[in-house]
C-alpha cells in the first residue's frame, strides 16, 4: 500500500457495498469451507467405505483408546513385558495383555467418558453402533498387539506348548474386556470399568496361581507355571465364555435405545 491513488481506490471502494447482486458472505463461507475442512486420513476413508458411514468412521477414529498416545502406551507396556519374559522367563505378556485390553475397552465410549454424551444419544448414527464399532476395533487392535508380543516370546517359555499359550489369553482377554465395558456403561464411569476389568483379571491370576501352586506344592507360588495357570487351565475356559456372554447382555441392556435414564 505504498501508492496513494491505489490506497484511495481500495479503501474507498471497500467501504461501500460493491454490488447488491453479489453476496460476499456466501463467497467467504465457500472459501472458509475449503480452508477449514478436515482431510480424513486414508485409514478413515477406508473405514468410511467399509462401514458405509463417514460418521461412524469419524467416531471410530476419535476413540481415545485408538489414538496414538494410547496405542504407544499399550505397545510399550507389552514390549516391556516381552523383554522381561524373554530375560527372566516370567510369562508377563499373557498376563498383561488382557488387562491392557480391558482398560482400553473401558476408555472406548460411554457416558462416563464422552462429555457430550447426551448430545451423542440424539444422533442419527446411534450411540450403540458407535459403542459396538469402537469396542470391536479396540479389541482387534489389542489382540493384534498381544499376538505380536506373544510371537516375539515364542520359545522362551518351554514348559507349555507355544501355540496354546500364544492364543489362550484371547479368551480371558475377551472376558476381561466384556467385564470392563459392562461396568463402564452401567456405572457410567470409564475409570470404574478399567479398574473392574484389569483388577478382576489380575486378582484371578494371583488367586488361581496361589491355588495351583498350593495344589502342586512345587516351588514358590510365583512360579511361571502357577502364574500362567489362569491362562492354561482348560477348566476356566467355560467360565470365561460365560462371563463374556453375561457382560455382553448387560451392555446391550444398558444401552438399549429407550432406556430412559434420567
Amino acid at each position, binding site marked *: 500500500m505504498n501508492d496513494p491513488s491505489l490506497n484511495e481506490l481500495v479503501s474507498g471502494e471497500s467501504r461501500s457495498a460493491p454490488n447488491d447482486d453479489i453476496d460476499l458472505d456466501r463467497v467467504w463461507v465457500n472459501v472458509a469451507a475449503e480452508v477449514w475442512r478436515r482431510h480424513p486420513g486414508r485409514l478413515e476413508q477406508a473405514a468410511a467405505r467399509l462401514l458405509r458411514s463417514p460418521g461412524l468412521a469419524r467416531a471410530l477414529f476419535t476413540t481415545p483408546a485408538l489414538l496414538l498416545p494410547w496405542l504407544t502406551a499399550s505397545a510399550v507396556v507389552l514390549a516391556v513385558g516381552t523383554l522381561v519374559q524373554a530375560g527372566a522367563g516370567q510369562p508377563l505378556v499373557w498376563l498383561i495383555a488382557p488387562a491392557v485390553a480391558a482398560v482400553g475397552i473401558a476408555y472406548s465410549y460411554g457416558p462416563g467418558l*464422552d462429555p*457430550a454424551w447426551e448430545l451423542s444419544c440424539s444422533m442419527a448414527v446411534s450411540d450403540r453402533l458407535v459403542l459396538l464399532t469402537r469396542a470391536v476395533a479396540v479389541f482387534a487392535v489389542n489382540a493384534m498387539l498381544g499376538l505380536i508380543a506373544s510371537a516375539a516370546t515364542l520359545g522362551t517359555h518351554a514348559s507349555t506348548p507355544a501355540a496354546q499359550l500364544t492364543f489362550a489369553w484371547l479368551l480371558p482377554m475377551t472376558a476381561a474386556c466384556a467385564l470392563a465395558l459392562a461396568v463402564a456403561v452401567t456405572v457410567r464411569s470409564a475409570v470404574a470399568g478399567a479398574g473392574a476389568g484389569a483388577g478382576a483379571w489380575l486378582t484371578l491370576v494371583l488367586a488361581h496361581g496361589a491355588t495351583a501352586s498350593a495344589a502342586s506344592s512345587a516351588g514358590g507360588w510365583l512360579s511361571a507355571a502357577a502364574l500362567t495357570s489362569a491362562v492354561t487351565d482348560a477348566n476356566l475356559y467355560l467360565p470365561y465364555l460365560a462371563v463374556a456372554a453375561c457382560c455382553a447382555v448387560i451392555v446391550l441392556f444398558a444401552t438399549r435405545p429407550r432406556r430412559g435414564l434420567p
Partner: protein
Amino acid sequence: MNIELTDVTRTFGRNKAVDGVSLAVGPGVFGLLGPNGAGKTSLLRMLATVLPPSSGTVRLLDRDPGKPAARTQIRRRLGYLPQHLGYYPSFTVAEFVEYFALLKEMPAHQVPKAVAAAVERVDLGPRARARLRTLSGGMLRRVGIAQAIVNGPDLLLLDEPTAGLDPEQRVAFRALIRDLGQHATVVVSTHLVEDVGTACSEVALMAEGKVVFRGTPGELAARGEGHESGDSALERGYGAVLAASRRQAPTGKTVQQ
C-alpha cells in the same frame, strides 16, 4: 405439525417430571418458559428422542420416535442443544461442529460448507480453528448452537441457549432464532422470559410438570396487568400466571429433573 404430544407423562421414581402434557407445535419459534425444575428439560429431552415418555404418545416430524427407522429419520432432521453440553477440549470449533454433522448423517460432500456456514452464523468465524479448551463459556455455548443448526434442522431444540451469552450476543441470538423459525420449529427452553419472549410467536409456561399457560407473548403480557413484580410486561405476566398456578395446586411439590 412438527411436534404432537398427547397426554405425555414422564416419571423418575416417584417424581412426575412431566405430567400429562399435550402440545401441537408447527413452524415458528416456540418459547418453553418456566422456573428451574418445572419439567422443561425432561420435555425437551423427550422431543430430542433421548428420553422415552412413561406414558402418552410423542410424534415428531409426523413420525413415531419409538420406531428405530423413524427415529433415525427424525434425528437426521433434528438440532439439539442440551442444557449441559460437554465439549471435547482437543477439538477445534470446526472439528466439533463437523463431528456432529457427520453423526447426523449429513451427506459428506455437504459437510464442509455447512460447517463453515454454521460457524459463521454464530459469529465464531475468527475462532474456527481454535481448540475448544481455549474458548470462553459464551463462545462454547455458541459452538453448541452451531452444531445444533449445522444440518439445517426442521426441529431445533435449545435448552437454556443463552446461558453465558453477553447482552449483544443475546440480541444476535434472538435474530438468529427468528430467522430459523421461518422454516423450522424452534423450541427454546428458558427460565429467562425476556431472553426469548419477543422472538417467539408462541409461548408455553410450565410449572410442576404441567403446561399452565399457552398463548402469544402478547397474551402472556396481558395476564400481568396489575401484577406488581417484574421489570417488563412479559415478566409480570409470567409472574402472575405462576402465582395463579401455585394457588390452584398448593400441595404440589417442585419436581427435580
